[in-house]
């Protein structure tokens, strides 16, 4: 097997024999993000075991999630699905009283063709709680794509008229209560010279502090974000009207993007993702451009961030990285790391939507040219066994990989970083670039300290 360097981005597709998390794992972060939700995973002990173990101690904190565990009677259709689900949902309503119940369909509901989409509207009207159906199963999707299926389903639930338009009086009474706060915001707005533009809705689940940071960055350009999908509460889903602009913050949201374009008739701003200062700047610029706004001060802002990263950049420059691929953040992260001066051998990725990621792929190519590095190969549906052969041949300085391979690779003297940490750390926007490098350099720094002890490999 020879590994050649190429002038253009090359796309390959392997066997799909790789480790990743089941997409139902999205409930772990989405139930925390959407505070009034309840996630019901309709599946088997296999699904439950996975969630229980992957959530770690969160499982003891009475999470707003549960399994509807299918038993033999459910599979052989001796029991009536509708009645069973109704019984469980009523129990959830009684115990937790959520504003929305999200049903997560699994492999089993797919195989036995349980008609969740058909049952949901009926049950919804019967019990008086919205039921959103997302088929986030391991037959069709990988890890973070779970969020995509949930958000795509929620996109259809976003109101198209504001409640204040429906009931002007009510909201007037209500808003007077918050007069103080509103005045504050207005005075702020005047100071910031907000521009009058088409409404912009952003999509992708991020921790609240990151949402605030990105809102602020856009505000500096005079842009108002009219809402986020998802919002903190299901009841606060943004208003989406035909012709609104939408833009994604995650590379794995292609179904949500498609739904917003096709079903809600929105205009999608195709931009690189706001990961790393380069990505964040490009993302803001692209939004400005689409809204007809002249971006200002971004070049200095980006430079300022790069300057502040000097200590980390010295550590990573010239070092090589190999992404085994399991969460779809790979292209954006690789692009950022190349800009940091690293060499990326391979970008493994579960699924590559070249259209949704088009701007990101362009920026990756541009970055490689600018930095004078070879184009990495992009390997869709990778084969972990083959990848490990390539890793042993290439001996990269860092392998970004799942936890199944991390310890064995470490034992073979190869530095690793758990990919899943990038999914849970705050990596978006200008100010979090540092956190990405903190993650990337941690194994490099630790190894540096331990190498003096003379241990590199721990196997015979």
């Amino acid at each position, binding site marked *: 097997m020879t590994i050649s360097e190429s002038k253009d981005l090359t796309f390959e597709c392997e066997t799909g*024999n*790789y480790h*990743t998390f089941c997409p139902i794992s999205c409930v772990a972060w989405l139930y925390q993000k959407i505070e009034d939700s309840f996630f019901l995973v309709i599946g088997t*002990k296999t699904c439950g075991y996975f969630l229980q173990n*992957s959530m770690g101690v969160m499982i003891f904190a009475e999470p707003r999630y549960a399994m509807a565990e*299918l038993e033999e009677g459910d599979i052989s259709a001796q029991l009536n*699905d509708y009645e069973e689900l109704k019984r469980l949902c009523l129990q959830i309503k009684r115990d937790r009283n959520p504003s929305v119940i999200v049903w997560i369909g699994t492999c089993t509901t797919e195989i036995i063709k349980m008609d969740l989409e058909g049952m949901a509207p009926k049950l919804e009207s019967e019990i008086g709680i919205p039921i959103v159906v997302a088929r986030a199963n391991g037959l069709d999707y990988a890890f973070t794509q779970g969020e995509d299926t949930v958000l795509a389903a929620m996109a259809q639930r976003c109101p198209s008229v504001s409640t204040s338009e429906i009931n002007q009086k009510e909201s007037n009474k209500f808003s007077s209560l918050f007069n103080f706060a509103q005045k504050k915001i207005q005075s702020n707005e005047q100071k910031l010279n907000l521009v009058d533009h088409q409404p912009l809705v952003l999509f992708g689940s991020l921790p609240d502090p990151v949402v605030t940071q990105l809102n602020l960055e856009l505000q500096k350009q005079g842009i108002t974000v009219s809402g986020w999908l998802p919002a903190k509460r299901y009841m606060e889903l943004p208003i989406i009207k035909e012709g609104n602009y939408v833009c994604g913050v995650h590379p794995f949201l292609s179904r949500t993007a498609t739904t917003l374009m096709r079903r809600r008739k929105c205009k999608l701003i195709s931009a690189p993702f706001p990961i790393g200062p380069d990505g964040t700047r490009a993302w803001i610029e692209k939004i400005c451009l689409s809204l007809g706004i002249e971006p200002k001060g971004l070049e200095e802002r980006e430079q300022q961030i790069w300057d502040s990263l000097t200590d980390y950049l010295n550590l990573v420059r010239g070092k090589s990285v190999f992404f085994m691929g399991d969460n779809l953040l790979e292209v954006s992260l690789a692009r950022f790391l190349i800009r940091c001066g690293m060499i990326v051998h391979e970008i493994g990725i579960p699924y590559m939507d070249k259209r949704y990621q088009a701007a990101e792929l362009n920026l990756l190519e541009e970055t490689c040219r600018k930095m004078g590095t070879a184009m990495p190969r992009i390997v869709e549906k990778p084969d972990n066994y083959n990848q490990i052969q390539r890793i042993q041949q290439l001996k990269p300085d860092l392998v970004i990989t799942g936890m199944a391979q991390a*310890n*064995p690779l470490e034992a073979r003297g190869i530095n690793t970083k758990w990919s899943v940490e990038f999914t849970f750390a705050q990596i978006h926007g200008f100010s979090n670039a540092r956190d990405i490098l903190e993650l990337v350099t941690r194994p490099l720094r630790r190894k540096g300290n331990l190498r003096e002890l003379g241990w590199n490999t721990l196997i015979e």
Partner: protein
Amino acid sequence: MKLAYWMYAGPAHIGTLRIASSFKKVHAIMHAPLGDDYFNVMRSMLERERDFTPVTASVVDRHVLARGSQEKVVNNITRKDSEENPDLIVLTPTCTSSILQEDLQNFVERASLESQADVLLADVNHYRVNELQAADRTLEQIVSFYIEKARKKGDIALQKTKIPSINLIGIFTLGFHNQHDCRELKKLFLDLGIEVNEILPENASVKNLKNLPQAWINIVPYREVGLMTAQYLQKEFDMPYIDITPIGLIETARFIRKIEQIINQLGGNVDFEPYIQQQTKAILETSPFVQTNKNSKNNNLPKKAIVFGGSTHASAITKILVREMGINVIWAGTYCKYDNTWFQEQVDGFCSSVLITEDHAEVGNLIAKTEPDVIFGTQMERHVGKRLNTPCGVISAPVHIQNFPLAYRPFLGYEGTKQINDLVFNALNLGKELALFEIFNDSSTHETFKHDISISWSPEALQELEKIPGFVRSRVKRNTETFAKEGKIASITLDVLYAAKENLTN
């Protein structure tokens, strides 16, 4: 359908994978959707494995759903065969394959024609058995397969070893303190002059399974896994087995005496009594439960305890608490529903009532209702204990990273007895300390949140600040205010907060 938040025993395929990956040179191929190989993560993380877990998936996706696995499973088996040269490949069905109803046996037969390795289909049904039952069955299946194979070839080792010997059955990966228990038992056998013939399945080679009948006795320390294999070997070769769990002084003595009895019946001549006396005495001399008079603070026994866990550990711990520590067990329970009768028999007379359930809420409610002073249970009961402010010692799987201590912590044998003494003693004392904390109203954790008066915070910034985790919040606040002062900024807005963050982390 049932609403479930937590399960004590995992799905069947986990049991099969635990057995398969414990052997050397055995590879498991799961017939499963992408994402069901989470087992590899657990094994790598919890056991801190240095080798790649020998488990891969033959992925079930949309294509398989539409057209069946066809050549895919066979190809995956033969591919693994040539890549890794395993001795055995175990095709492992999952919940998904249970309902797809493909003829996996047929794939196995076809694949075994082409591959060097032996190929087996694990005989487990997702909807009928759980993790532990599946593990028990898979081990028996592999053992009987190789015994039959050796029989056919006529190279089975039937001659007993000269020195009395045992097979140790049921030590395997991701078992609760299994590695430590194994080491402790090996030491015990060494002390007794007994040879260890084979240990199953941990680190065993399937090629050696034909040597199993050489041993004098089979030892099954954990009831959940290994019993079927021992019973099979008894049926086939008339090999006696011992299923006493040597937890605590009394049971360990009973365990050793049983070994002595069987060895002597089989023509050996051993006397382990002096060893038992000497070991027991050494432990009694240091046991805090026997030496209570010396330390008057501990004389408020008996305490009220409850016990819940796997059948082996829950019953053994109940016995040791009652008989050796004088602690009153108000109820004992297990989640091994399928082994209900055995458990009832074991704890009969040691506690006033028995709870058999797989529902953690039922366990939690009964704990709340009966208000024990101390809990001995799984990770789930530990968290119930946290909520109710009741101390808890973890004595049974499901496992957690903390149950894979680096330091030597067996539960079995004499060393195990010491470790259980510590565990119980600390749990009881912790309860006392917690009560003391409360009496003196320890308020050191309630840090008050003061503001610097000269600098004002905008409501948005303050709100943002509240989102920062408690343990760093005051530092972030202080740093931001310093930053503002230096920059002569009178009011901290969101912008200032983030500017400070960027500035200060540099």
